[in-house]
């Protein structure tokens, strides 16, 4: 089971991940079209890459009215473009805020792991974003008690 793990204490906030992610889809640069976002809090020096962690509970039951929010045969969380009615219920439902609303008000954006070799992992200068292949899917509980940045 592959999933992306982030370490916000290592993240420098450079947003290379956002740039390469948006470039992959459209060959242009636009962080607002990225499937990973770095939340920043400059006063406290916090840079927190927010991305889908393939939580075991996802998709939450009865979230998507059209069942477009699903897990594919490799168990990867996806939003099926054709089935999506663009209601953004999934954006609201994700407890990590890892499903994003694009500026064009089209199908929500969620990490698809780049067919198993995520470009953000490859590009991250500080190795704050890594790919884990171990164990089963994470549950939200696994994030509890993680060290608060600074």
């Amino acid at each position, binding site marked *: 089971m592959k999933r992306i793990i982030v370490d916000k204490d290592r993240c*420098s906030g*450079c947003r290379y991940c956002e740039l390469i992610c948006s470039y992959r889809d*459209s*060959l242009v640069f*636009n962080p607002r079209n990225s499937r990973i976002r770095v939340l920043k809090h400059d006063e*406290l*020096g916090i*840079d927190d890459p927010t991305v889908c962690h393939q939580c075991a509970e996802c998709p939450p039951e009865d979230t998507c009215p059209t069942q477009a929010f699903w897990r594919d045969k490799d168990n990867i969380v996806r939003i099926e473009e054709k089935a999506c009615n663009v209601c953004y219920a999934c954006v609201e439902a994700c407890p990590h805020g890892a499903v994003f609303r694009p500026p064009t008000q089209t199908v929500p954006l969620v990490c698809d792991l780049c067919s198993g070799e995520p470009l953000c992992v490859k590009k991250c200068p500080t190795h704050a974003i890594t790919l884990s292949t171990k164990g089963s899917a994470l549950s939200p509980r696994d994030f509890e008690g993680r060290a608060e940045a600074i």
Partner: protein
Amino acid sequence: MKYYGYAGTVLRINLSTGKIARNELERELIRGFIGGRGFNSKRLFEEIPYGLDPLSPENKLMFATGPLVGTMFPTACRFNVSAKSPLTGILGDSNAGGHFAAEMKYAGYDQIIIEGRSREPVYISIDDDLVRIEDARHLWGREVYETDKILRENIKDSSARTAIVGPAAENGVKFAGIFADLMRAAARTGVGTVMASKRLKALVIRGSKPVQVADPDRFMRISEEIEDAIYRHPQYWPRVKMGTTRILTPVNEMGLLPTRHFTQGVFEHASEVSGERLAEKYNVKSRGCFSCNIPCSRFYNVREGRFSGLKGEGPEYEALSAFTARVGNRDLALALKANDMANKLGLDALTTAECISWSMECYAKGWLSNEVADGLDLSWGNGETILTLIEKIARREGFGHVLADGVRAASQKLGFGEEIAMHIKGLEMIQADPRGLKGYGLGFAVASRGGDHLRAEPFIELSDDPKRGIKLFGVPEATRRLEWKGKGKLVSYFENWCAVVDALEICKNIAENMEVLPFPKAAEVIRAATGLNMDADAVAQVGERIVNIERAFLVRGGITRKDDTMPSRFLREPFTNGNSKGSVFELEPMLNEYYAERGWDLRTGIPSRQKLKQLDLGYVADAINTR
């Protein structure tokens, strides 16, 4: 054809009338000046008339970014802010990194020009095409961080980027800065003062438009090549660990660390305040600017002592060494506090430290009495005095009011200390003594914004590699820091390079100091990003054009060779100890060589008509009426 990389729009906002205009970015501006500092300097020359009062509504405040900003090109994140400077009366500009510039690009603007003056305090909110002038009365008087917090609460979007002026700017301190992302200071030459004079408290920007390059595959290939060059560079880890503060120790070892207001070149407590010390004692995390793979900014956290709880980013070398060696202070935490105060109040840390250290030298010499200085004990390194003066300057209280117009004006007002007021053309000098670094010194003397190193940064004079000196500049001395020969050619070359880097709005530390983007490489990436067909010579010529139009702006204001000088201490008093012992600054022969290399008149330092015409600046030659 369309030029890629650019957003293609110039936004003009008149705060007197409330008029907001969008104009197409001019093609000749792109071809002649590339971006950023180039755009601003060209427009300043054309739109700011001779004799204009910098604090009048007619002054213009220009933000500009470059064609690579918003892409994944390493370090492409910077912006220039320009205006006629209230501190120096000549060209004013300052440059900062962070995330502001990219957001400006995503919102769809290459340049934002603020004109006029609002009646009430306002801030400008930009959300793509939606540009609004909003009431800022509730923000006026507030410090930078506080202002940012209130603005964010209001818009509920943490991804918005801000550029803010602090109370110092509002109070008319002539060296107030503009602070992007809280701590990215564009603070030299008083651009923040100009912003506040327009009653403009902040810009808040959000953008969602894409930035597209001409040849994506090629562009990504070059970007990756540059990225690798940065990762492999021997300076990579020192910079990640210490940023520019890594140079404090070597500058001290070379005997040119301005100590106690340039009275010495060696600070005996350097090891207590060095970059190494800062890293091991206080740094907790590396932070980077937008699209940068070498995160050289450091977040610090003071966990003990009287400043316990203090946290923030930086400081960089200039602020660190200015609030330590320059003022004779050996308390590192106090220097962090001083820098933090300057950031929050909105001051230029360098100029502030010059004003304080100048006062301290005047006090040591017995010229300045306690009474004039509000009863403060101005002994070298007095921490309480340093912090009190920062606050007083920002509030224009008592003796702070005297210092708030800069060191040149303070010395004139008080009637003493003019010869030791360490400024060039009104801009307070940086933390490197020109007696120990001749090429840098020449760069200070001729810099178009006054006493500053960022116009030239001729770092290879530190290489001590005579072969390189001969190859590039014809003489082995060019690459030896204590020699003067070849420095005219050296500075001319590096000024052109820095101008290109500033026009592209990428990081000078990386592109120039780490030598990852020489002219041929710059030409390649410009072509891949924009589609502009330029070879290395054409790119170098853009740099030369920028330097020349800036010089013309100065010449029109009355600047000539006599102003390309520096305080007499550097010309007459040799260092008495350290590894630059015995050295003075040989100004005149260096100037001769520099003007000759530039094609400027030897007697006056004015660009010749022939040179300007060669750079397609015939109209500039007419405007300044040169021969």
